[in-house]
């Protein structure tokens, strides 16, 4: 009996020493690079993988279905995507990504509507202080022909209250993007991206 206890204690000590000397990763703080191009989700909520995928799909669809039919790269502005979800989603990141892809594709041009105040301020400063040969001309900004707007909507479902050790959540998202002709107010192009994801969360933990 005594030998058995001693043997068990010895095994426990050996296991502890092994974990201690090997530095079990679960007990250490660590940092590692992640490949942002790989899809990875930690939960059912909208995340960066979704943002990247949706932005690429929207830019691709706009490129092939709308911009390809334009005689020349049109001047556009992005008024924003309305967040209609129950989460703090930075929709500006999404529209920035779409704009980057479109400009890189060379089929669309954009005015910098978010920095208009800064532009006017800098133009005013330039007119007052810059040398004549480097001054920018006032009233030469380009007007946008199309406005890009949209909305991100969400619907949630949760498993009902019952005897259970985990709960299942399903989140459905729908992004609608439309391009409106600023002169006629006609919606010239519209596109939807939708996806849903299910996640299971434990109701009991240590």
């Amino acid at each position, binding site marked *: 009996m005594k030998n058995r206890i001693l043997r068990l204690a010895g095994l426990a000590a050996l296991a502890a020493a092994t974990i201690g000397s090997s530095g079990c990763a679960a007990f250490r703080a660590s940092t590692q690079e992640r490949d942002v191009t790989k899809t990875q989700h930690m939960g059912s909520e909208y995340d960066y993988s979704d943002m990247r995928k949706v932005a690429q799909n929207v830019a691709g669809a706009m490129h092939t279905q709308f911009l390809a039919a334009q005689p020349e790269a049109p001047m556009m502005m992005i008024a924003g995507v*309305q*967040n*209609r*979800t*129950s*989460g*703090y989603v930075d929709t500006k990141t999404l529209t920035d990504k779409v704009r980057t892809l479109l400009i890189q594709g060379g089929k669309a041009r954009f005015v910098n509507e978010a920095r208009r105040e800064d532009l006017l301020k800098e133009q005013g400063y330039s007119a007052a202080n810059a040398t004549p040969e480097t001054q920018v001309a006032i009233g030469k900004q380009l007007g946008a022909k199309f406005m890009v707007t949209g909305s991100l909507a969400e619907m*949630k479902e*949760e498993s*009902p*209250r019952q005897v259970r050790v985990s709960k299942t959540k399903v989140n459905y998202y729908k992004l609608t993007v439309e391009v409106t002709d600023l002169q006629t107010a006609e919606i010239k192009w519209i596109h939807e991206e939708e996806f849903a994801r299910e996640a299971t*969360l*434990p*109701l*009991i*933990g*240590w």
Partner: protein
Amino acid sequence: MPRVTPIDARRPAAWRAAVAAGLAALGFSGCATAPLEAARDHFRRGRLAEAETALLADAAVQADKDRVLVLMERGTVRQAAGRFDESSRDWIAAAAEAEKLETYSVSKGAASLVVNDSVQSFRGAPYERTLLHSLTALNHFAVANWDNAAVEARRTIEAAAAPTKAGFPEDAFSYYVAGLALEMTDDPSNAALLYRKAAAVAPAGILVDEKSGRVGPRPPAATNTPPPALPRTAAPAGWTHELICFALLGHAPPGGSTMADRWYGTPDAHVEIRIGGRTAGRSYPLADVTRLAAQTDARLAALRVAKTATRVVLKEVIAESVAQTTDNDALGDLIRLVLIGLLERPDIRRWETLPRVLHVARVPCPPDLRGAEIVVRAPGGAELRALSVSTPLARRRTTWVTFVRDLPPPPPPPAAPKS
């Protein structure tokens, strides 16, 4: 018959085990009580900087099981100080932490069965978690971030519809704030739905018009016919816009106060809105935190009694078995004293910097509104105090939104010594 305690080899080990158990229990019961109490006291006296300092103390910041409570209290202090973005960050973090606590901790649950309920992490009562969203929405109103206010509106709806919320009280104020957030983001049908919900749970005698969002006295009706629409208050020519003012009056009852009938009194004081020296209208109460706390306590009473009885029995069994195993009555009594006499206490943690009564006024105002005077009036109409409000004041189209927390003015700085 008195027991003779023999001296044997097992006793030192038993003593050590008992002392270790006692220390572990005391360790489990440690919390951020001191900084929280200090902060609340400063807050009630209008000393906001001191209140925030207390909540930034190490004991408060590192309090694991009171983390949600510390964030709730700090958010209130920062909101009252006019630091709306920081307040929102605290409350959003508090909501995220509270959501994580949905997963039941077996270790803390077991500890709560041998110590007390205070060893479990504070998650907030359902009404507190709902108010977390509506007060965050007020912060977003203050900085004219209507989309984020609508996010909180949707979270309010989710919190109110959660299956675990069944049987707990609902508050009309949160529904109203959510309705306004959706109205401001061009979602009138859902706004009307929320105004209707607010009307359904509003205090007796208060009517919320689902179409216009106006709040006023409910006319006496003999039948169940829908109430008539509330007319626009008479206003001077040119007052084409509307001002919605949320008035947060008084202080929520401190944790541990007896939720007896005396707390149930009808919300009495109200505020009168004056613009440019003219009376624009008055406020109406939509939620009384004291009532919400009392109804929550009533809902949980049976559960708490059952758990306390189970815990006391378990503690008695532990004390008795230690006494029998060690053949030492004194040790058993000591363990009984520690487990039942010292550690057995109710969990009285509560979000105490909440206001007591939450009012809403929706009154006509001029388009170029610069500020308003908020006059707090007693039920008889006597003027209690007047507050001048110029910030926060946010506008979207023809609607202005502001809110005010009725706190005593901060004490004047000490006079410089005469030379």
